């Protein structure tokens, strides 16, 4: 019988799993794999400039394509560089498989050169992980890893493979079945509970749907819309749920939470039934828990049983897949009309929206940039944002029309996410317009990836919102720390010259009236392009709920609130 090396088996297994691209970086302990790779031209390998970027790129790929993203690194420092991205994928339930080389079996546990216990390190930040030291285990482990990553509540799985195992030979037979008696995700919601949810929704006077990431992960956008339209119930979308319903839909209300809209948070406080699906009641959404949705009975649908009942008391818990539960529910729920309730929320919105959306007069702020974005791009784009003020504004102000067009690091809030994640998005959608939007701070956390963008000819559009500060931290210092700008003012290089050094054209925009032209120029460029928007330095993201405060207590500028009170509840 024909035998293969472990390294060849790894490639065969990747192909069997439908992988066609991976992001990685070689090194000693993973060299056998890289030796085998050229024998498999159908596997595209993208060489990043730092392993963290390989992880985020795999995430970006998975977040848009719905397929499992793959990243590869060597042992020791290569593997530890992946840790942030793996944690990010864990928090946001992103299906990635991380493959790391490990020192030879005889050195494991002996502090061999570049040995780290990466299965130990990543144990709490992976859905599951494996250390493989027997080549006969490789096919089964790959089969299980991809299955675990993509099914149920998706998440990262790490496979650590000893170097001698990659070199060992064995017979390759890829298993067709999986034997994991302890892992059986439940997709169909309990019929009785679904009925109960329907009757609660039928009786509700002021129902509200809170749609989260689960709608996108479960590819249930269409089902969500049908359910909302049949029942007439308005929809709010969490940060990671954004783009699961077109934002110009008459029932789409926007984002709740710390930087959500006033009318949305107020709707949560006024509703009598809160139907939450694929969201996990993060503290950035709920604010102070015991005053969240005070008047509402909560229906919670999630594929992960451990999320149901974790943070809030639920009247009707349903463990199941978003798509199937919505289908079943839509079938049995009564058609309804809640236009009075929707109009009531829209009235609150109307009194606020002007000042929430408009920049302060005479200043050049991100509001101008994002307004032009929405106007010019007409929903035909995919946006990856970084973490900070620019991220919150991009969530608030850009209008998203199609699923998976807003990609951000939600749960972990990882600065440095946007550029490498956007590379993954662009690889998944080579013919679409992909924008990476980062702050001056976050951009500098992974800017080395400009080289990857060029080497791989990725036509990414990169946008830096430069306010000269670690803006979000500065905002908290202004509001809660006596304006003590400790370690937040930030010097940056000439980003246009920097881009030029990589061979990437770019422009700097310092006035609102030049925004549109720069965007047009970027779009007209065949290949990557960088725009630096030099915006007003000290503008704050509003509205805001102070950390730890109730979502009833939003403020729109500091003069509206006694800062003392805010500090007291922090």
């Amino acid at each position, binding site marked *: 019988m024909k035998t293969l090396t472990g390294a060849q088996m790894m490639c065969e297994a990747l192909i069997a799993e439908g992988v066609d691209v991976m992001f990685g970086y070689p090194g000693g302990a993973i060299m056998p794999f890289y030796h085998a790779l050229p024998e498999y031209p159908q596997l595209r390998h993208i060489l990043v400039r730092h392993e963290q970027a390989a992880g985020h790129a795999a995430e970006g790929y998975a977040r848009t394509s719905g397929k499992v993203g793959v990243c590869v690194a060597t042992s020791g420092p290569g593997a530890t560089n992946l840790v942030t991205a793996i944690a990010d994928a864990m928090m946001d339930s992103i299906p990635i498989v991380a493959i790391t080389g490990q020192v030879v079996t005889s050195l494991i546990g002996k502090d061999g050169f570049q040995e780290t216990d990466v*299965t*130990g390190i990543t*144990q*709490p930040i992976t*859905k*599951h*992980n494996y*250390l493989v030291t027997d080549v006969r285990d490789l096919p089964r482990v790959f089969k299980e890893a991809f299955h*675990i990553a993509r099914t*149920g*509540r998706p998440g990262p799985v790490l496979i650590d493979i000893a170097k001698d195992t990659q070199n060992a030979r064995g017979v390759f037979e890829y298993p067709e079945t999986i034997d*994991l*008696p*302890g*892992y*059986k*995700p*439940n997709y169909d919601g*309990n019929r009785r509970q679904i009925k109960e949810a329907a009757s609660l929704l039928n009786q509700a006077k002021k129902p509200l749907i809170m749609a989260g990431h689960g709608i996108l992960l479960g590819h249930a956008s269409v089902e969500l819309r049908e359910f909302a339209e049949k029942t007439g119930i308005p929809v709010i979308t969490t940060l990671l749920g954004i783009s699961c319903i077109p934002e110009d839909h008459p029932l789409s209300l926007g984002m709740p939470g710390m930087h959500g809209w006033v009318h949305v948070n107020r709707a949560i406080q006024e509703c009598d039934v809160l139907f939450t699906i694929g969201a996990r009641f993060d503290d950035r959404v709920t604010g102070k828990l015991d005053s969240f949705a005070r008047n509402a009975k909560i229906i919670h649908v999630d*594929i*992960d*049983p*451990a999320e149901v*009942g*974790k943070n809030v008391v639920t009247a009707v818990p349903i*463990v199941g897949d978003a798509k199937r539960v919505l289908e079943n529910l839509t079938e049995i729920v009564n058609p309804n009309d809640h236009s009075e309730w929707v109009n009531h929320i829209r009235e609150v919105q109307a009194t606020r929206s002007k000042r929430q959306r408009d920049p302060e007069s005479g200043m050049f702020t991100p509001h101008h940039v994002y307004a032009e974005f929405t106007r010019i791009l007409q929903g035909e784009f995919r946006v990856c944002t970084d973490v900070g003020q620019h991220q919150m504004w991009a969530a608030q102000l850009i209008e998203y029309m199609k699923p998976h067009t807003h990609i951000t690091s939600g749960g972990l809030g990882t600065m440095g996410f946007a550029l490498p994640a956007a590379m993954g998005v662009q690889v998944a959608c080579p013919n679409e317009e992909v924008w990476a939007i980062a702050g001056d701070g976050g951009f500098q956390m992974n800017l080395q990836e400009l080289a990857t963008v060029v080497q791989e000819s990725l036509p990414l559009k990169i946008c830096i919102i430069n306010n000269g500060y670690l803006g979000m931290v500065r905002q908290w210092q202004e509001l809660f720390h006596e304006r003590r700008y400790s370690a937040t003012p930030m010097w940056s290089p000439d980003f246009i010259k920097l881009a030029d050094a990589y061979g990437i054209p770019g422009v700097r925009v310092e006035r609102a009236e030049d925004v549109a032209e720069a965007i047009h120029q970027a779009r007209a460029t065949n290949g990557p392009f960088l725009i630096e928007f030099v915006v007003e330095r000290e503008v704050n993201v509003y509205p805001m709920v102070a950390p730890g405060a109730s979502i009833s207590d939003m403020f729109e500028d500091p003069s509206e609130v006694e800062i003392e009170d805010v500090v007291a509840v922090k």
Partner: protein
Amino acid sequence: MKHTLVALLRDQPGVLNRSVSLFRRRGFNIESLTVGHTETAGISRMTLVIDGDTTSVEQVIKQLYKLIDVLKVSDVTQDPNVTRDLLLVKVYAPPAKRSELMQLADIFGAKIVDVVPDAMMIELSGSPEQLDRFVDLIRPFGIREMVRTGCVAMTRGASTISGPYQSQEFRAA
């Protein structure tokens, strides 16, 4: 209130480590934990005693189920069951105190497993409450060294915990 949970685990590398570090990370208060073999090769059994007032038992069960190699978790607290803890205790026992100690041991059905001129080792297995009472009684003699294994539990009757591996509501996802 104390809860006794029984879990079946596949013998895979790291499964115990995963369980224990889960308790640490989520801040679960575990009073005792024991692991041992079962009737089936490749499957271990873990018994956990949790203080249900400080730790959500439901969350412990659900989070354990999220581990791929955890097959079954069952709260046996309310079921009729046999719970046993094992005690080894070395007591200060000069010849004058010996017979008194032996009498106490006898009442509890404990065994004297070692005797030297001024000390004695006693072995007792029983419910944790029984062991508590025995320890309280011999404490005045002077305990020099003591160890308890923590509880193991099994429900009474013909049915077994290993029945179907997954309970409907708490399946891993």
